[in-house]
């Protein structure tokens, strides 16, 4: 069974710092004009965003030797995913989106001004990440109450976990019907500000490195 989770925009407080990061500022603070613009774009974005996610828990089989993870509905050949899920017997699979109206808002801003376009796009990225964090926390709390621990969430495109698996995840979650999230022929999710990921569930806590530190793309402009 696929479960649904949704939040309205006032429950997802977008972090300005994250927006700065997506705009390429790294650890530097932008000037007043830019911060004012970011605030304005956040406010506007919040009028259109409606966060939705669908998720479920599946049993998995992690084959360390063959670097193969069997989710039942898909078998993934990936070194990095095997590493992430080693020792897990089940996993959450989820898809989340900021919604079609937010997407339309980004398209509109981008069509009208490249400046507002990039800022709103960065706001969208920060917002969907934050929404995923909230969902992640909720799932972690549920698991903790059952004595289980979660691994850092892992998305297609991380390491050698190929984007080619994206359609299978979306189809399995029936995401088009459940939350209005679909995928183009070229594997681009629509709405673009969407995330899919798997989150390993294990009986023991493992100190897993996550985020930028773990990523092999060391020349990334968004790296912190």
């Amino acid at each position, binding site marked *: 069974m*696929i479960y649904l989770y949704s939040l309205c925009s006032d429950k997802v407080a977008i972090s300005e710092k994250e927006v700065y990061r997506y705009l390429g*500022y790294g650890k530097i603070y932008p000037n007043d004009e830019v911060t004012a613009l970011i605030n304005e774009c956040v406010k506007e974005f919040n009028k259109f965003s409606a966060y939705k996610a669908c998720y479920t828990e599946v049993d998995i089989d992690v084959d360390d030797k063959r670097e193969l993870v069997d989710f039942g509905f898909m078998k993934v050949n990936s070194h990095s995913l095997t590493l992430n899920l080693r020792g897990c017997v089940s996993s959450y699979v989820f898809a989340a989106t900021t919604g079609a*109206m937010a997407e339309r808002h980004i*398209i509109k801003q981008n069509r009208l001004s490249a400046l507002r*376009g990039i*800022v709103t796009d960065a706001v969208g990225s920060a917002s969907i990440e934050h929404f995923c964090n909230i969902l992640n926390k909720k799932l972690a709390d549920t698991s903790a109450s059952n004595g289980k621990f979660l691994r850092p969430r892992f998305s297609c495109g991380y390491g050698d976990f190929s984007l080619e698996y994206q359609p299978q995840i979306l189809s399995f979650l029936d995401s088009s*019907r459940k939350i209005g999230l679909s995928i*183009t022929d*070229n594997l681009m999710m629509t709405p673009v500000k969407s995330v899919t990921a798997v989150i390993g569930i294990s009986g023991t806590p493992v100190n897993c490195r996550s985020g930028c530190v773990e990523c092999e793309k060391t020349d990334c402009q968004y790296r912190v």
Partner: protein
Amino acid sequence: MKITDIIKNEIVYFDGGMGTLLQERGLKAGELPETWNILHPEVITEIHRSYYEAGANIIKTNTFGANCLKFDNLDEIITSAIKIANKAKEGFTNAYIALDIGPIGKMLKPLGDLDFERAVEIFAETIKIGSALDVDLILIETMNDSYETKAAVLAAKENSSLPIFVTTVYDENAKLMTGADPKCMIALLEGLGVDAMGLNCSLGPEQMKHIVPMLVEAASIPVIVNPNAGLPRSENGRTVYDVDADKFSDIMVEIAESGAHILGGCCGTTPEFIHKTIEKTKDLKPKPIEFKDTTLVSSYTHAVEIGSSPILIGERINPTGKSKFKEALRQNNMDYILNEGIAQQEKGVQILDVNVGLPEIDEVEMIRNAVFELQSVVDLPLQIDTVDIAAMEQAMRLYNGKPLVNSVNGKIKNMKDVFPLIKKYGGTLIALTIDEDGIPDTAEGRFRIAEKIIQTAKEYGIDKRDIIVDPLAMTISSDTNSANITLETVKRLHEKGIKTSLGVSNISFGLPNREFVTSTFFAMALQNGLNCAIMNPYSQEMMKVYYCYNALTNRDDNCARYIDFCSTVVTQTVSAASNVSGKIDTSDDEPLKKAIIKGLKEQAAAITAEMLKTVSPLDLIDTQIIPALDIVGKGFEKKTVFLPQLLMSAEASKASFDVVKASMISNNESVKGRIILATVKGDIHDIGKNIVKVLLENYGYEVIDLGKDVAPELVCETAVEQDIDLVGLSALMTTTVPSMEATIKLLRQKRPRCRVVVGGAVLTQEYADMIGADFYARDAMETVRYAEEFFA
């Protein structure tokens, strides 16, 4: 009895969920339910029968996801589904079968990559197979996008004569995922002529309850309500829906009492839910369905009702008398049209007129582009304004909503051409009081033509509510009695309950201070009952009349909108005064340079205007604008300036350039070079490309922007036709890099002298080399630098 007759007078019942029942019988998550039509037909038959036994009148075939994108054996899947349904029906009376059509599962452009016409084709394939077999109606269901819904209904109309029922998915705020509200869907679907409409899925009956009256009170066709059994949640490791059959059926009684005629269920509901609903509602006498005499047009988010308050239709997207606009059309420059659309919306118009007819351009192609682009960024309903019937049809077809269509007239041939389009695509028509004998010079004569048009429309099945008569305003400079005739006609039409519209600006043609005459005429026409005016919203005199009229006729609570309007008038006066009194600080040595570096758009424009009084335009460009851009550009390259600041400065310098250009007597601006930019085929994300465009334009290059998702052929054709030697291509995804490669290959064949610069999030030098690009630009500034070298 035909199902379309029964639903008008009785409560009719749909079945409930299929997916949940199949899961109980072993369907695995991710497994396509339609495959069971072939693998386990007996299970599907048994479920259908159990619904008929529970009392349902209409069962939905197990074809929700049956489309050619998901199934190679589509024919087999659909044929077996319908066979199963007919087998299940044996022995039951009042039993009907609906060919079930769900969404395609891909988003339509501009949100996704699916073309509207392709969506129509996909639905058509399913409908052709299904409607050739034994089914009683087509149910288009679980639609969460108005545009996709329109594609499905058109496919049904073009490929079958079966009744069409449509249910869409609303959220708790009564909006579709892509924004449409109930009234908007009513306008669209009644315009398209469907037989019943309503809502299903996503919500339980409790959350749907408040949406049902919104539909019943505005719709003239039966309303369908198929809720979920609430929301799924996990209970002790078991999945349960939070509404049981008793509670569900209790609320369905309230829903039936509020006027729904067709009841059923969606996810999580079972034969028990349907049975209990029937038991509790079967003796209810359904509310009679009333015809609503309301004139609606709609966009993809909302409907505009014409009748109760005056409606402003912005006239500015029309090339007549606008040389800049004509130039924009010739160059296929959509930005001009979009900016006009947004600006008029900000001024307060409720509908946008779209006229893109020029003798030297292909109007069909142009109006398709204009409608597509406008409805990507503006959420106002559009008035499709053309005399070209082919262009009219294409625009109506592609339009995401129910358009206003300008126009039809009293000539037999014209009515024959236009009415079938309204019948097919839906729309409200502006009807001009002119016929084979010309424009009558009496109110009586014009009124008679109006009546003739309305009568003829009726013969095509188009109701009077979808005809708005334009009794034609003609200038008083050639006939001083002409306003009297027009106003008298408006009055007579109004008294007969016929809605009216006027292109008010014509009244003053040839006179000095036209606004004085036009706005007074507008006020007089409103007083005579005018419903809509095609007008210039930039005219303060016109807006004054509009807001005052509403305030004076008790159409503006607490005069709030009038007061709002006045506050903008005050601001304008003050800001004009501040410019005159020279509050801008130009004492600084390089004020313009500083304004551009800081990215202050308004200031940059104002300072430019001030400085031009003493400095020559070219000096200003050389000493202020270019050096400022260079400072910011170099800062960006050294990573002391970041992208938002770079673009802020770019916008400020553009504002400054615009003022400079306007001040130059001859318009011989020097273009440094012409460059094509495009985001490659399959890629629908074009932020990067837009950044490059802004900067290139800033540095004096002319950019031919082909947009996103651009086929290699179009890039090559444009390069050849327009004699272009530099092309910039952008890609966001690794999956679209092959399209980039294909574009480069084709360019090498068709336009070997052309150089190609590539960029985008996933591109690297290695990729660029691999696909044979001439230059890899890491960021927007690098493209500018390359262009400077190239054109040096």
